[in-house]
């Protein structure tokens, strides 16, 4: 699980090259906004990041599902992790939501909460791997990834 989380973190941080030909395929991208839901013992998925209000929709969905599971006699704990970016998020101040403003914080929290909800202990302070890899932290560097060959 930890390895999978680190792999996901590496992709989100822009540390993984994609495409068949590096010389001709260098996508310009960066993580603008994101939502992740951590839950146990039942799963909760995020709302599709297609609509403008998908951050609020994800939070509403998580609450509704926790209630539905409760009706079936199962108490589900959950936490919604949100990278707000420039999007509106009216429910981001709630207690069941952890909202961050920087992509690097989102990735770091993603790994921590992922380990916590997967049943493992949260990573130790300053542990290697929970942080984005060196060179991926700055917005400028993530934009083009040029020079990191």
């Amino acid at each position, binding site marked *: 699980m930890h390895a999978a989380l680190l792999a996901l973190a590496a992709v989100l941080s822009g540390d993984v090259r994609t495409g068949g030909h590096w010389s001709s395929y260098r996508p310009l991208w960066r993580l603008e906004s994101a939502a992740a839901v951590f839950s146990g013992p039942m799963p909760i998925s995020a709302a599709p990041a297609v609509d403008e209000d998908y951050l609020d929709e994800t939070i509403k969905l998580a609450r509704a599902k926790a209630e539905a599971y409760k*009706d079936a006699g199962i108490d589900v704990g959950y936490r919604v992790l949100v990278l707000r970016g420039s999007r509106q998020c009216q429910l981001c101040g709630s207690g069941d939501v952890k909202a961050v403003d920087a992509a690097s914080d989102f990735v770091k929290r993603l790994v921590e909460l992922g380990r916590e909800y997967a049943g493992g202990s949260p990573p130790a302070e300053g542990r290697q791997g929970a942080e984005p890899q060196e060179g991926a932290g700055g917005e400028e560097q993530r934009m083009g990834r040029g020079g990191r060959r």
Partner: protein
Amino acid sequence: MILLSVRLLFHWGFWARPLFMSARQPTMTVPPPTVFVGALARGLAELLRARGRGVPEYRRAGGRYYVPLAQSLGRCVERVYFRLVRGGVSAAVDKTRVFQGPYIRLENLSDPSQRFAVRDLGKAYAPGAEAEFAVLVREGCEVGEGDARIALDAAALVAAAHAVTRLGPAEGVVAVADVAAMRWEDCVEVRDVKVLDVPCPYFPWGGGELPPPWRTTQFLDWRDERVWSDQRVQGDVVVYAVPESEWAPLRVEFPPCSTLSKVKIVECGGLGYVDPRV
């Protein structure tokens, strides 16, 4: 009988392989019923695990694999419906690097270069589309084995449906937005014209004349246990009526139930479902 209605949102879409396709892998333009029975079985497995009863994802017997929970759930499902409530599906083929382990010939298994290959992989794109699948389930039907058994009731089915996170492969992520369980016996023949204007789900075809854009197709019968094993043999099939666009066969939208004049349509929870017995 319980009609379990599940509203879901596609993240990007889905893919569903036609039977026995391997090297060339297009996609069906609508997800087959086995996809929904499998997804619901996985939801039930989550529910059983949350109650402290372990359920295997698959089991090996006689040198072959099968999915025990889907197999027993399949026997409890009488009918499956699916419709797009909002948006449409556009099928396409992308070049994708895939693991092709199941299709390697025995004499080539030791060759690592055979394990991955670039294939034409069909995908049915439906970003942001809203869909509904509904299953007609026998109430009280027992699913599972040993200690991990559950008699299907409305509460268990609703919780299991909420636990559905994907359709088909792991990449087919969906968000279940709403779930409702209704008694099929309480559904009445539709009289409200508004219900007939809502997109109509695909349905088991009882025979007779089928107006365009509806056509018939064959799906694997989810009640046939061979479907849930890795035996690559032709199992039983069911004939379904599905919509097909007249102007582009790879683009699918669901027409309203008013396009079907010679079948009985019943209303459940404000939506219309074709009852193929009439």
